[in-house]
């Protein structure tokens, strides 16, 4: 990889081993993977296969035991906690299975939050969020608190929050797991359009067949290792 590294993510010989009492549990085993900018890809595998851990290592939420992770050109393992926080703020958007909106903020404020931390002015923040709310059918719900939104609506706000700050990649951990089929389809349509129209890189950890069908690339993880890496046209 060079200074002009254009990949969103590159991992090389990545391992993540947890110490559980006297026992070592290997969650990620020797994973080498490159995710290009603009990809719409899925890390697929059964529960406990290590896909969420891999997502967390890529997103700088947890550190790998060994190996290299480069996100948007930044070597994650060499970073301090402060630098990791800045990396997450500037380069990574997260979408969680349980939505994880901040309950004390309105839908609009939740979506604006990463941009607020980035120091982007109110006018630009609101313009970006309003545009994305319009695209995602959330217009008119800006002032509602998360408790007053349905699961599908909360997840749309979470998607807007993840993409509005224009990160290098969006990591989505089982984003459709808590949604009914109609909401799941609508959400996938929405993310697909954002990927197509705005070039947002999406990486999903999922075992939802619908997500895998819509993904152009599916990397299957079994027992922490890459079992297959297929690209659909």
């Amino acid at each position, binding site marked *: 990889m060079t200074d002009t590294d254009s990949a969103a993510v590159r991992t090389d010989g990545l391992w993540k081993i947890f110490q559980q009492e006297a026992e070592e549990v290997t969650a990620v085993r020797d994973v080498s993977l490159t995710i290009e900018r603009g990809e719409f890809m899925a890390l697929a595998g059964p529960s406990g296969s290590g896909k969420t851990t891999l997502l967390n290592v890529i997103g700088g939420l*947890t550190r790998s035991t060994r190996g290299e992770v480069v996100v948007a050109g*930044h070597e994650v393992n060499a970073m301090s906690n402060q630098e990791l*926080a800045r990396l997450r703020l500037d380069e990574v958007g997260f979408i969680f299975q349980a939505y994880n909106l901040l309950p004390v903020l309105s839908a609009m404020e939740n979506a604006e939050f990463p941009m607020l931390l980035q120091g982007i002015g109110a006018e630009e923040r609101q313009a970006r969020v309003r545009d994305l709310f319009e695209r995602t059918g959330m217009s008119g719900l800006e002032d509602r608190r998360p408790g007053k939104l349905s699961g599908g609506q909360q997840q749309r706000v979470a998607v807007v929050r993840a993409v509005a700050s224009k990160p290098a990649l969006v990591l989505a951990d089982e984003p459709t797991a808590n949604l009914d089929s109609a909401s799941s389809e609508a959400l996938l349509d929405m993310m697909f359009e954002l990927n197509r129209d705005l070039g947002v890189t999406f990486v999903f950890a999922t075992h939802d067949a619908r997500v895998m069908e819509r993904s152009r690339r599916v990397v299957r993880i079994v027992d922490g290792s890459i079992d297959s890496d297929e690209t659909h046209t």
Partner: protein
Amino acid sequence: MAKTLMTLRSQPMQVGVILMLALRNLRRQLRRSILTASAMIIGGWLLLFTFSLGDGTHETWIDSGVRMSGGHVTVERPEFRRSRKIEDRLSADVRSTIERALEAPEIAAQVVAQSARLTINALASSPAGARPAQIIAVDPLAEAPFSMFDDQVLEGRYLEPDDRLAAYVGIGLVESLDLRLGSRFVVQAQDTAQDISGQLLRVVGIFQSGMPEADQTVIHIPIQTAGDWLGSDRDVTNVGVVLADSATVASVATHLERVLAEPIAHGDASVLEWRESNPALYAAVAIDNFGNYLVYGILFTIIAVGIVNTVLMSVLHRHREFGVLQALGLTPGQTGAIVLVEGLTLTAISGVIGVSLGLLTTWYFFGDGIDFSALIGEDMTFSGVVIDPIIVPMFRVSRLSQILVFILVIGAAASIYPARRAATIDTAEAMKFER
């Protein structure tokens, strides 16, 4: 090769974001916030009012104590306190320097009364016997606003400017010498020529101070009479000053020490604060204060444990939320700062409310005070002081500041551990919490 880390800008502290999240979280947990705040409000209220009451009590003790002795500040020769002899009197120069110093505008504003006295040990005799006595020779006009003796007339009256051989005598001494109003008796003491000299006096008034030591020994006589008797003219052994507020004692004493620097250096004068001239009273005030500090230390430790518990529960309840905040880009320090600001805000608001209630209660009792005579009676004495059962609370800005700072420190200290817990969460693990 990956990009250097320098390309990632360091993150500002985000004070506005932290404050917004902290305030909204307090509002979100309104019931819990109100319960925690209530403890702080009651604590702040009690703290301010009882310290105002305590300060008022101590001020009354001190005022009573210094008026029954030598004043808030006393100037005398260094040997006088031990010897009580007439040769240890102040020179005319020193006395006039003191009087000029007390006329300085910044000092005069603090001075309520001053009295120059000739105080000596003597022997009082009557046909019934002889008793040791303490002669306090005074200018009746200056002494009346200075001491409390003139208010304690049991029979007769206090001294008047035209009195010549008049004596104002304690009830205990009157009884010991079998005297009554109008009785004549003799006092003997060493004069300026170091001879034993006698003086005939007539009882014009009898007082009862409530303090056995004063009632059995003290005789007030006009200073003119003492000067003629002892050959001391208008010389005095000590000059006492009563101040409006005991908090100004140090500044007045320092001023006097400055103007009397030369006599002090030559051993011709010393300036004593009431703490030195009345150590028993000082000890009593200090012990009472210590007791108050101890009780409130314990009370606030309990309140602090309550705050730690409340804030910590709130942190544990929001474990996942802190994980999300860090995933979104907040640093561990900023996450901890939210909790710290929550604790401090809650403490500051409830502290201000509590202290305001304390001020209102103090203000309500400013006029008439609180009558504790049912609890302590009318005649209680303590460390040479007659205790007034009516206690008027006293407000001091310094006490208010102390209490506010104390409450804030308690709030900050109680929030540090929960803030640390929030700052050190494992972000990935926190996401697994189901709330």
